[in-house]
């Protein structure tokens, strides 16, 4: 009996991600959830600009490539075009979602737009070669913070889940990570809930996945996971930041 194989909603292609990049794991989790919920035929994904720009090639459902940061607005359009027949998700990195697209993110959340957002936070701009992200940690060395992120000069990293949790709008906000098997399974559960919420018409769900970028962090994949555990998770604590339905029940 097959106990593990590539999910059907994931295209049978080699992804362009660097060795050990956790994008691959999260792509697979999204595809597994699409399979398990049986929604591939009605799902439309929106890819960002950033490392996952070519996500449109990796999912077998319909896909749209959005302008940088605009995925929540595009998703709003797709969802509202046919709310009962379209399941819409965006897949965005930290630069896309929390910097250039912050307005689109916040307002989609405030509207409780009935979409699902998968937010990859790896504290760096990967595609352009490792520049400072809105989520780069204080002191973190990047191409554009070569002496370490100086919070007096360029401010503090943004905790997206905490920030959005102050809004009345959003239905569900959870921060997960994929640094070990247990956490990968928890991440999948959160992603599944985020899609189920949409199916149930509950509204805006955002899953922040604390992720790695071994190449631009300058580490082996294994060391990157260790660095994530020691440095990212203290600043970005895992957990559910908002679950409106649970509160009401």
């Amino acid at each position: 009996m097959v106990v593990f194989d590539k999910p059907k909603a994931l295209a049978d292609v080699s992804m362009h991600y660097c060795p050990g990049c956790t994008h691959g794991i999260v792509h697979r989790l999204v595809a597994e959830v699409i399979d398990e919920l049986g929604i591939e035929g009605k799902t439309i994904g929106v890819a960002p600009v950033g490392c996952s720009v070519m996500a449109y090639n990796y999912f077998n459902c319909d896909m749209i490539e959005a302008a940088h940061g605009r995925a929540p607005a595009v998703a709003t359009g797709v969802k509202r075009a046919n709310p009962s027949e379209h399941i819409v998700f965006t897949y965005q990195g930290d630069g896309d979602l929390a910097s250039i697209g912050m307005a689109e993110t916040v307002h989609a959340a405030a509207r409780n737009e009935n979409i699902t957002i998968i937010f990859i936070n790896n504290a760096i701009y990967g595609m352009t070669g490792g520049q400072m992200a809105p989520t780069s940690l204080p002191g973190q060395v990047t191409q554009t913070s070569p002496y370490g992120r100086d919070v007096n000069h360029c401010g503090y990293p943004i905790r997206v889940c905490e920030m959005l949790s102050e809004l009345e709008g959003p239905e569900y906000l959870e921060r997960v990570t994929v640094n070990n098997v247990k956490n990968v399974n928890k991440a999948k559960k959160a992603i599944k809930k985020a899609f189920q919420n949409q199916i149930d018409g509950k509204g805006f769900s955002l899953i922040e996945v604390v992720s790695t970028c071994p190449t631009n962090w300058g580490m082996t994949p294994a060391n990157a996971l260790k660095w994530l555990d020691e440095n990212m998770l203290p600043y970005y604590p895992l957990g559910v930041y908002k679950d409106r339905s649970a509160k009401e029940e």
Partner: protein
Amino acid sequence: MADKVLMKGNEAIAESAIIAGCRHYFGYPITPQTEIAAYMAKRMPKIGGTFLQAESEIAAINMVYGVSSAGYRVMTSSSSPGISLKGEGLSYMAGSDLPALVVNVQRGGPGLGGIQPSQSDYFQATKGGAHGDFKMIVLAPSSVQEMAALTVKGFELADKYRMTAMILADGTMGQMMEPVELDFEVKPSPEKPWATNGTKMQRTHNIVNSLSLVPEELERLNFERFERYAIVERDEVMYEEYLMDDAEICIAAFGIAARVAKNAIVKAREKGIKVGMIRPITLWPFPKAPFKKAAEQVKHIISVELSMGQMIEDVKLASECKVPVTLCNRAGGMIPTPEQVLAHIEDIYSGGAK
């Protein structure tokens, strides 16, 4: 024949869009076009449509991008500064070959400018309006009736050629009231096999995308797109000729400027000066042929514009510089008067061409 109703230009656009089958409108408030949004906010919920006030012009055009990707007729509207913000989305829509209707009720610029009428976004509208090689179909109404008719036409052309159609109006056209007839025969939206509306597990996935990292491929897409544009230039040019049969002086004007010019022409004719007008209705594709023909007939062309002179460049190109082309203009929200245009005509007639 349907009854005529008295409507503002902006409202005529909104109602005509609904008649054309548009059920999704996204916008951001900006003077002098906000009546379109207000009208849609009232009407859309009553007919099962969607009106959504977006958080920004950028978000609005990207919501349009989303609905269009899913294969539905969709529109947004704004005024000059807002259209600049939409530029990114317009370029992406062109790169993804998505149809939509975008309305620009122009106001004076640059920058925040003013809120009075202008035609100073002619270059922006007709020469691309954002990064990359692309065109939009640009329609220039000169009456409230045309605001309505060109809105319907705009949706049809957008769908037919998978392009953005832009209504390039101005504050006067948007705000003024005239009787309109709204009994349009609407061509329904064509099949859109490219739309991302869910595979229903019956086809391979569709991708709406403007990214193409292989230059040979991106070049091919650009050439293909411009082959389509060439068909638009061949088949979709619209213009009106007014008293051109015996004209010795030709006025080039669109939108509100053409109405001012008509008054001046009538007065000039009363004085025995043979003036006619070519009024482009499509600004892109530009009506090159009539101006080329006019250049063989008239002694002079006057471009009447509410700008520092933008269409005049296309008039000069189309008339191949065979006759002098001069500018009669106001800018920054001011409108030329018939007297100003008449004075310009008389100046030319008496040999005082600049």
